[in-house]
């Protein structure tokens, strides 16, 4: 949907108008295909980017595309309004909406900022009564909205809420009660008011359509009896991710009822089990022949990990981000997983554990290493450059990394990208802000220089450590495919940010915090921001005047400022994004739209 913003609702749709200003090829003769045929062909297009391109060819194609589109993706809910969407697309069945800026995940956006789903739902109920899917990320959703959703769309099938807030388990109860055709309920990492687990019992006894159920991040206990019966009668269940309240013996009973599972999130993996039950659990895993994805494993007790071994050889994605395993424990487990494509792990496994990954998982494409003690910087734990090196050496297909570490060197990163030149996502977080190469004491400029020079397919980059403007010179010059850039505690002057805005032709999202970039840098991107989704700058050197100038020069951008309490002119946070909907009407008092 990256071209949606260009759609000015005032374009007159007259037939055969030679308005080549709006459409590159003014087609004078009628379309060569009947509309129905064109629509049928276009209905096979699924990629948003393809559809956007199609819609720009000519008026006929624009219309055929909009009539045949059933899935809509809106990366910034404020870039467009419900009315505009409803007017353009008459036949939507699936909606994906993203709300707050990503830094809200890290408490940088105050409460009640906005991104409320309700007005959207009201419009959808009017225009899309056949709506089937709703996927929300960083939106505010109330229980009333959930109830409204459940009652308004009789064919509703899939609800996915990721990093949302504002609702409670009562809202989930409405969904379970009223959505008779539900196939997917995926609730992940939300700021939710966990009142009780009774919502699960609200699924009617004759309800059997569920295929995906993820309530791993809910705390309150559900009725196991209700869950077991639900799993028994939903024969198409493919994904089941339970919460901590479900123990090992209960897990065994669920697996026996659903051996067809492809994705499993276990509950708590620590319980006093008689060895007879241990063997039964191991057999249950052995019978899950389709298991590809495994997660959960809270409080994973090493003692019980062996029950997983029979299922490990078919695993493609193993998520251990909640399991504090030591390196020796982890090494034994990973040896059973030769087909892994994706691994998420805690840094408790240390470099030794990562060496084992390099040896055992040659097909690995993605690795994420999270810090078990992110705020305990005095503790000498976690992973270093040698773990990352070991993985890059053994896993040559690696293209996605998220790596939290205590130390790094330029040389190591240069070697890593030599080993794995196909990185598309390179997110390195050296946890101590502004830390140099620990061996040479130099800035980490050459590390990221090596990344952008070698990895020509790079789409997403997050930088850290001691960085001068040179890093940004490199990024601007070499990162031709870069779409998302995250910067923190880096740079020396405006020049750094200017380099990025002057280069990086495909840049869509730029998020910056605690950097010495000021108004000159902000304003150097005047022309660029309309081709981007958004810019976030917090704790930089931007002032109100700079932001006002930007807003004045670029009326199709929303420039939203959150001010510093102490100083009227200094801007604490500014969020800039393109929009066809104009300034938003629901901004809270602490957000000023200029």
């Amino acid at each position: 949907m990256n071209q949606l913003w260009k759609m000015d609702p005032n374009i007159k749709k007259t037939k055969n108008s030679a308005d080549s200003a709006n459409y590159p090829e003014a087609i004078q003769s009628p379309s060569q295909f009947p509309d129905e045929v064109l629509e049928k062909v276009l209905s096979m297009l699924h990629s948003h980017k393809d559809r956007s391109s199609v819609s720009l060819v000519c008026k006929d194609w624009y219309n055929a595309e909009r009539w045949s589109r059933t899935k809509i993706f809106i990366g910034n809910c404020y870039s467009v309004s419900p009315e505009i969407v409803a007017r353009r697309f008459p036949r939507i069945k699936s909606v994906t909406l993203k709300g707050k800026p990503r830094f809200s995940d890290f408490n940088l956006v105050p409460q009640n900022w906005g991104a409320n789903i309700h007005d959207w739902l009201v419009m959808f109920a009017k225009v899309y009564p056949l709506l089937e899917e709703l996927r929300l990320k960083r939106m505010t959703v109330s229980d009333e909205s959930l109830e409204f959703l459940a009652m308004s769309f009789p064919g509703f099938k899939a609800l996915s809420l990721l990093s949302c807030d504002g609702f409670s388990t009562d809202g989930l109860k409405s969904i379970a009660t009223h959505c008779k055709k539900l196939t997917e309920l995926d609730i992940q990492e939300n700021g939710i008011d966990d009142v009780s687990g009774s919502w699960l019992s609200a699924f009617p006894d004759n309800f059997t359509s569920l295929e995906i159920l993820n309530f791993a991040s809910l705390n309150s206990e559900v009725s196991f009896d209700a869950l077991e019966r639900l799993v028994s009668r939903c024969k198409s269940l493919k994904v089941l991710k339970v919460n901590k309240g479900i123990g090992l013996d209960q897990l065994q009973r669920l697996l026996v009822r659903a051996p067809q599972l492809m994705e499993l999130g276990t509950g708590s993996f620590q319980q006093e089990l008689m060895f007879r039950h241990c063997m039964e659990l191991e057999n249950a895993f052995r019978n899950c022949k389709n298991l590809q994805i495994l997660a959960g494993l809270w409080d994973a007790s090493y003692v019980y990990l062996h029950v997983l071994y029979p299922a490990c050889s078919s695993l493609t994605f193993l998520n251990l981000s909640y399991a504090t395993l030591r390196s020796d424990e982890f090494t034994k487990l990973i040896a059973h997983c030769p087909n892994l494509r994706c691994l998420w792990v805690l840094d408790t496994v240390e470099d030794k554990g990562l060496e084992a990954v390099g040896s055992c998982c040659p097909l690995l494409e993605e690795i994420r290493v999270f810090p078990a003690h992110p705020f305990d910087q005095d503790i000498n734990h976690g992973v270093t450059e040698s773990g990352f090196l070991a993985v890059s050496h053994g896993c040559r297909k690696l293209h996605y990394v998220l790596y939290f570490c205590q130390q790094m060197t330029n040389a190591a990163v240069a070697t890593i990208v030599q080993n794995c030149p196909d990185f598309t996502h390179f997110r390195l977080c050296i946890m101590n802000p502004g830390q140099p190469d620990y061996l040479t004491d130099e800035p980490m400029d050459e590390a990221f220089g090596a990344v952008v020079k070698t990895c020509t397919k790079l789409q997403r980059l997050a930088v850290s450590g001691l960085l001068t403007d040179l890093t940004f010179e490199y990024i601007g010059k070499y990162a031709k495919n870069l779409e998302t850039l995250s910067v923190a505690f880096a740079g020396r002057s405006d020049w750094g940010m200017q380099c990025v805005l002057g280069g990086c032709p495909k840049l869509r999202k730029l998020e910056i915090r605690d950097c010495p970039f000021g108004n000159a840098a902000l304003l150097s991107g005047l022309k660029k921001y309309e081709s981007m989704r958004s810019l976030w700058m917090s704790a930089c050197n931007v002032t109100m005047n700079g932001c006002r100038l930007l807003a004045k020069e670029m009326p199709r951008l929303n420039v939203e400022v959150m001010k510093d309490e102490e100083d009227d002119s200094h801007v604490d946070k500014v969020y800039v994004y393109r929009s066809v909907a104009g300034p938003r009407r629901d901004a809270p008092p602490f957000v000023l739209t200029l």
Partner: protein
Amino acid sequence: MGKAANYENELATELRLGLLGTDHHEPEKQSFPLSLVIKSNKRSSSEMDYNSSDKCEQDSAPPPKAQVVGWPPVRSYWRNALQQQKKTESDVSGMYVKVSMDGAPYLRKIDLRVYNNYPELLKALEAMFKCTIGVYSEREGYSGSDNAPTYEDKDGDWMLVGDVPWNMFVTSCRRLRIMKESEAKGLGCL
């Protein structure tokens, strides 16, 4: 681009809070916007204090490093979930079980997690008690020495070490006892 130049002039003469921009040609020591330093003193900010429970302990401890809001960038949900995990003693400090040997004046304790299989365990027991443990066979139990290793399982029964797979043993063993062979024979025979 005359307009832009005018704006830049305007902004250059403006008073503002923040570090003076450094010339990008001069390699200077990195210094951060004031926000990092300021925030470390803003103890009243609710966003600041991740370790609120540690607040009192910090009075006598050396001053902690400046805690920055939202850094490192880990999702608050995930961080809370991880902190909530309680590990039982057996997981944090190992799986310690008591070991007694008939005739020895005091008991010992060993961590079962350290060993990968029966031979390793038996070797360690031999070294600890300065004894020899015989060779295991399914039919005969332990032969070739005076001693036989036994264990109490979760049901409270005394079992001969070695009959069940290693992993099963580790999860069900409550305590170990090295018996004199004459007594142990009673356990081994059908």
